Structures are given as structure tokens and as C-alpha cells.
């Protein structure tokens, strides 16, 4: 199959590819957000623990 | 005022733990309360006194452990536990737009009615003659005494009181102390938090200090 034809999607390229693009974005966001949240949380907890140790 | 002393009620805390805002207020707390005894909770502000009382009421769930009434978890007993309890919390639990009589009538209907008439209960807390004054027009101390009069109109064994003496004057404090003493003498149980020293000469008092 020819690549341009594939990308053209029988004239529906805009609708099909935007849909798949949005899907990709949402799926990626759902993976990236918890990853970032976890990293932030861990540094946050480590900082609190260090502070607590200095106080005692 | 209370059930005949023949029944042996008991309140027991087992391995209680309470966490609030990532802070452990208490852990492995245990005690046992029997008829005629008083439990006095002491501790700094924020040490978990109110939380413990709310756990005793079953309003708040403990983070571990349980409260047992006659050996059964109060969360399982539900209304069967509440017919033995009366609670006066931080907030008075009275409607300012109703008269003292209307307030007490509602309080009585919510529990198991006692033999005392509403007028007699008002007289016991020195509110005789205020039956039909809108509660809004009473002073803070009078409102507090009205809240405590709720204890008398239901037939509860266990009184759970959060800072009962707030906004009471010396005379008011004496009135309420007499009330508590009489309740304990008749085989009632008390669980009380208070900043004031509570004078209960004739009843055994357990003290738990949550700041310790």
C-alpha cells in the first residue's frame, strides 16, 4: 500500500488522524502524570524526613 | 434516671489508634469503664481529646482498634448502643430559634425517654422560668446549661461530654458537677474532657493524659 494514500484516509485524514492524535495525547498524559507525581511525592517525603531528623 | 444497676454495662477501648493530617494522635490506647466510673481525658489542645470522644460516639472511625459496648463493637451495635448514650459536643446541638422546651422535647424524642419531666430537667440546670424564652435570647452559659439538660431527658447510661464547662460561671460549674456526680452515683458512666479540674469526690475517676 502506498503511504500517501494511507495518510490521506480516503479524504477523511483530518478527522481520523486528529482522533488518533487526541487519543495518543490522552493516553500519554495518563502515563506521564502519575510518573511525575510519584517523583515529586518522593522528593517531598524525603525532604520532610530530613527536616524532621534535623529538628530532633 | 439510669437503668437499674443490676445490668452490668461496660465500655471498652481496644488498641485504639487515631491519625489526623498525617499525625498520629494516639496509638494502642486501651481502657475500660464500668458503671459508676468516670473517665477524664486530659491533654493539650490538638492532642486528640475531641477525636477520642467522637470515636467513643461512633461518629468518627478509629484508624485501628475498636470500641466495645458490653463486649460488642459499637459500629455493629448502631442504634442499640445509642439508646444508652448521650452526647454533648463542642456545639450545643440546640436550635436557637426554638424555645428551651421545644429543644428538650426534640432531644427526648430522639432517645429513650427518662422519667424526668422537661420542666424538672430545666429546673435542675437552673433554667426554671425560661421555658418559653427563645433560646437565642439566653446567655452563652444558659445555652450551655440547656444543652446539658438534654442529658436528663433521656435514659442514657453513658454520658459523653466535650468540655461541658465551657462558658459556665462558678455557680454553673457547681450545678453541672453535682449533676455528673449524681449520675455516677446512680450507676452511670462518664467520659469527659475538660480544661477545668473536675471535682468528683465520691466516684472513681480514670485519668488519661493524651499529651503524655
Amino acid at each position, binding site marked *: 500500500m502506498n503511504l500517501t494514500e494511507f495518510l490521506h484516509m480516503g479524504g477523511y485524514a483530518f478527522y481520523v488522524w486528529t482522533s488518533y492524535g487526541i487519543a495518543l495525547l490522552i493516553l500519554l498524559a495518563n502515563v506521564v502524570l502519575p510518573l511525575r*507525581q510519584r517523583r515529586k511525592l518522593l522528593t517531598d517525603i524525603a525532604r520532610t524526613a530530613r527536616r524532621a531528623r534535623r529538628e530532633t | 434516671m439510669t437503668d437499674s444497676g443490676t445490668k452490668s454495662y461496660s465500655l471498652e477501648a481496644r488498641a485504639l489508634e487515631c491519625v489526623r493530617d498525617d499525625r498520629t494522635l494516639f496509638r494502642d490506647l486501651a481502657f475500660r469503664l464500668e458503671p459508676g466510673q468516670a473517665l477524664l481525658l486530659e491533654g493539650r489542645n490538638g492532642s486528640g481529646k475531641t477525636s477520642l470522644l467522637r470515636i467513643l460516639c461512633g461518629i468518627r472511625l478509629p484508624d485501628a482498634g475498636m470500641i466495645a459496648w458490653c463486649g460488642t463493637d459499637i459500629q455493629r451495635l448502631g442504634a442499640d448502643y445509642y439508646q444508652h448514650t448521650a452526647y454533648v459536643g463542642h456545639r450545643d446541638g440546640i436550635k436557637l430559634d426554638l424555645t428551651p422546651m421545644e429543644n428538650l422535647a426534640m432531644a427526648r424524642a430522639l432517645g429513650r425517654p427518662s422519667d424526668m419531666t422537661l420542666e424538672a430537667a430545666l429546673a435542675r440546670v437552673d433554667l426554671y422560668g425560661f421555658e418559653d424564652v427563645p433560646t437565642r435570647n439566653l446567655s452563652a452559659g444558659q445555652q450551655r446549661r440547656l444543652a446539658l439538660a438534654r442529658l436528663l431527658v433521656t435514659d442514657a447510661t453513658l454520658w459523653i461530654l466535650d468540655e461541658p464547662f465551657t462558658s459556665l460561671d462558678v455557680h454553673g460549674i457547681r450545678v453541672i458537677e453535682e449533676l455528673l456526680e449524681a449520675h455516677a452515683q446512680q450507676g452511670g458512666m462518664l467520659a469527659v474532657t475538660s480544661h477545668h479540674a473536675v471535682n468528683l469526690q465520691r466516684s472513681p475517676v480514670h485519668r488519661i493524659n493524651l499529651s503524655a
Partner: protein
Amino acid sequence: MFNNFFHKLASPKYFYRIAGAWIPWLAATCLLLFLAGLYYGLVVAPPDYQQGESYRIMFVHVPAAWMSMFIYMVMAVTGGIGLVWRMKLAEVIAISSAPIGASFTFLALVTGSFWGRPMWGTWWVWDARLTSELILLFLYLGVIALHGAIEDRRNAARAVAILALVGVINIPIIHYSVEWWNTLHQGPTVTKFDKPSIHISMLIPLLLMALAFKLYYAFVVLMRARCEVLERERSTGWVRELAEAK
């Protein structure tokens, strides 16, 4: 042995570790399924005789719509378990599901709109399925807003569980009423997305994609649940050790 496994799973520390071990495998399988689904859906499957190539949006729209309903059910069931048996892990799963479910619902709505545009000539039609999906999005947003508004984490989880249970009783009623309203006001002129019979060459990618979405949900919800566990257990020793080891 099975019982023992669940007992251990209830311990946050153990859950955190085992979930961490599963996530890469689930993610890898999910990726493979996505690739296979996309290949069959975009390349192998023939164009539809009526809708041409545009029907290929179905391979994301339909699984997303399925998942949006499925995740709400999961949320209600796990929330109910957490409420009745005080199982903290169930609460965590329920809470972690909400944002994922909402994003799938949003995805179903947007792709539905993009699919509808060439079919109907407008971006939005008050079609029964899209309308139900919109209301479902509101239900999800309600859950998320309620959870965000309650400060105490355990109370928030219990409140959300009650709301999810109320919602789950209502969803079939909403679904039915919207379906009914739709036939009443528009007549059955709108083409239904799901045809009674679908050709096998289209069914295979659809099922592959649906499975991929399920696995995707599984590993993403575990990732979120791990964060929630860390947050809840932040004052315990094992979380501190873990944080400082990094």
C-alpha cells in the same frame, strides 16, 4: 494460598512493591496489543462500504466508550467494598480510577464528535450514545470535584464511594431515559454506531483495541494507586526509607 495472597495485598507496602513489579509487564503487553490493533485497524481492515475510511475512528471511540462505563462500574464496586469492609486498598483503586475514567469519557466524546462531523455534517448531535456519554462525564467530574473538596483522605474516599454507588444505580436509568428521549425527539434516523453485524476484519482490530485499553487501564490505575498509597502512608517508616533511598 489464595487467601493469603489477598491478605498480603491489603498491606500497603506489599501492594506498592507487587504493583511496581507488574506495571512494566502490563505496559509492555498493552503496547504490543495497541500496535497489533492499530495495524489491523488502520492497514488490514478494508474501508467501510458506507462510511469509507472515516469509520476507523471507531477503533478508538468504541473501546473508549466501553471503558468509560466499565471504569465507573469498577469505581462503584471497589468503592462499595472499601465502604463495607473498610478495605483501604479498594478505596485507593476507586479513587485512582476516577480521573482515568473521566479521560476515557472525554476521549469517547471527542472522537464521537470527530466521527460524527463527516457523517452528520455537524460537530455535535444529540445522539443517544453521545448524550449518555456527556452525562457520564458530568458524573465523573462530580466524583473528582467531591474528592478534591474533602481534605481528609479517608473521608474523601468514603464520600466518593457513596456517590459512585448512587451514580451506578442511576446510569442504567439515565441510559434508558436518554435512549427513549432520543427516539421521541429525533426518530431513528441517526445512524447507529454499532451495527447489528460487523465484519470479522473489523471485529478483530476492535477487540484487540478493547483489550489494549483494558490493560492500559490496569497499569495506569496501578500507577495512580501507588501514588495514592505513598501519599496516605507518607508518615510511615517504609515510605520514608523508600523516599530517602532515591
